[in-house]
């Protein structure tokens, strides 16, 4: 399949890329890993007349901690997140996520920035970013602004990015003492999008009570969903088996799945319930210092 024609631009700085997006207007699209956009262009679901390839911009591929945040450059590949020792040791929920995105070949090109900017509720990073309460940095003609992840996903394939803004960085607060997180995904086969996925982070205080909880759901609604009622029910209470089961039930209620080739709405809701229980249980083990 051959995509429609376009003019290809390969800027070498963010400023240049933003200037191109601003001057070329509606017809322009950013090309990052291309693992969502190029298949869509081949199917003619997307026909941008101007393609701004940001892969030639130096300095957008990094994973580092600074000033209380883990910062990840937008062009960081899923494969690099998957293999990063810092991520494996300190941010296992991010490793869980990157590890189950697509397959090794796609992960060699797909970027974290693209995974979020695409705004696809089927993607795995969005729910995880809800759970870790991330921010994204959007850079436009007037400089950079930070967008809280809860304000970022507006609808299917729609985000808070302006057409001439580039997502340049993802910022994740360094987890508080006693925190643990996990991402659990149910998929039909390796490389497929989730039937459902659940990301959970819990923080335990000195007495083993849950002082904070955060839960994000993948592919069970028009956007990634925060399971707010489940978070509230957990907060301030002991993280018992019963409390976790109740949070699972509330997360299932918060999901808005539709029936499709991956299963009926009823089945997916039941899976959200079960996956929430598994994600919370694993998060708790990690918060207590286990694997």
């Amino acid at each position, binding site marked *: *399949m*051959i*995509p*429609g*024609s*376009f*003019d*290809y631009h*390969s800027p070498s700085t963010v400023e240049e890329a933003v200037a191109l997006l601003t001057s070329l207007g509606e017809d322009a699209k950013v090309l990052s890993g*291309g*693992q969502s956009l*190029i*298949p869509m262009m*081949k*199917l003619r679901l997307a026909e941008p007349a101007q*393609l701004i*390839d940001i*892969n030639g911009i130096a300095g957008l591929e990094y994973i580092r901690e600074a000033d209380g945040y883990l910062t990840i450059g937008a062009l960081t590949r899923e*494969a690099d997140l998957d293999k990063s020792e810092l991520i494996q040791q300190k941010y296992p929920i991010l490793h869980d996520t990157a590890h189950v995105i*697509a*397959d*090794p*070949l*796609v992960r*060699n*090109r797909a970027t974290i920035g693209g995974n979020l900017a695409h705004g696809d509720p089927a993607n795995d990073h969005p729910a995880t970013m809800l759970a870790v309460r991330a921010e994204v940095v959007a850079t436009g003609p007037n400089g950079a602004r930070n967008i809280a992840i809860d304000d970022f996903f507006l609808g299917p394939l729609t985000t808070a990015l302006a057409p001439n803004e580039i997502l340049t960085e993802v910022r994740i607060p360094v987890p508080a003492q006693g925190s643990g997180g996990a991402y659990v995904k149910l998929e039909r086969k*390796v*490389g497929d999008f989730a039937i459902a996925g659940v990301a959970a982070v819990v923080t335990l205080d000195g007495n083993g009570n849950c002082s904070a909880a955060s839960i994000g759901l993948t592919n069970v609604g028009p956007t990634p969903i925060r399971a707010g009622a489940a978070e509230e029910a957990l907060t301030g209470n002991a993280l018992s088996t019963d409390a976790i089961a109740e949070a699972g039930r509330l997360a299932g209620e918060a999901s808005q799945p539709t029936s499709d080739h991956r299963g009926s709405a009823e089945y997916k809701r039941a899976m959200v319930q079960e996956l929430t229980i598994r994600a919370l249980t694993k998060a708790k083990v990690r918060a207590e210092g286990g694997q």
Partner: protein
Amino acid sequence: MAQQNITIKVNGTDQAAEIEQRLLLVHFIRENLALTGTHIGCDTTHCGACTLILDGKAVKSCTVFAVQADGKEVLTIEGMTTNGELHPLQEGFMEEHGLQCGFCTPGMIMSSYALLQENKNPTEAEIRWGISGNLCRCTGYVNIVKAVQYAAQKA
């Protein structure tokens, strides 16, 4: 139609051409260079038949534009032999019956090559994970895993 001059080093040789900017890397390799070992299977980024090595990384060449490979290096299945001698992976697929129809084989070999570059002695699970972006409709994968193990032992 937007045209562009590119130069890609393919299997060690610089290949210059004026191409349409929308040309996919797999079409450049197969049609402009007549290197038809790299296959097109699904054409939708699922099967891995089009796998080649781009600057050291295994990628699906049906999902990269040729202009994106400008100034970079590509290795395809045709570049795996040296002076007519088969690469241990090629030999492994032959010895262990790692193919039946052979359609997936070039992609399987290129993915396995990338895996062995990073991990000289992979476990069976690591091999299966490493080739999980490549589909085979014939073999059931058992002999493909053996072929990769054969190559790992030989190297």
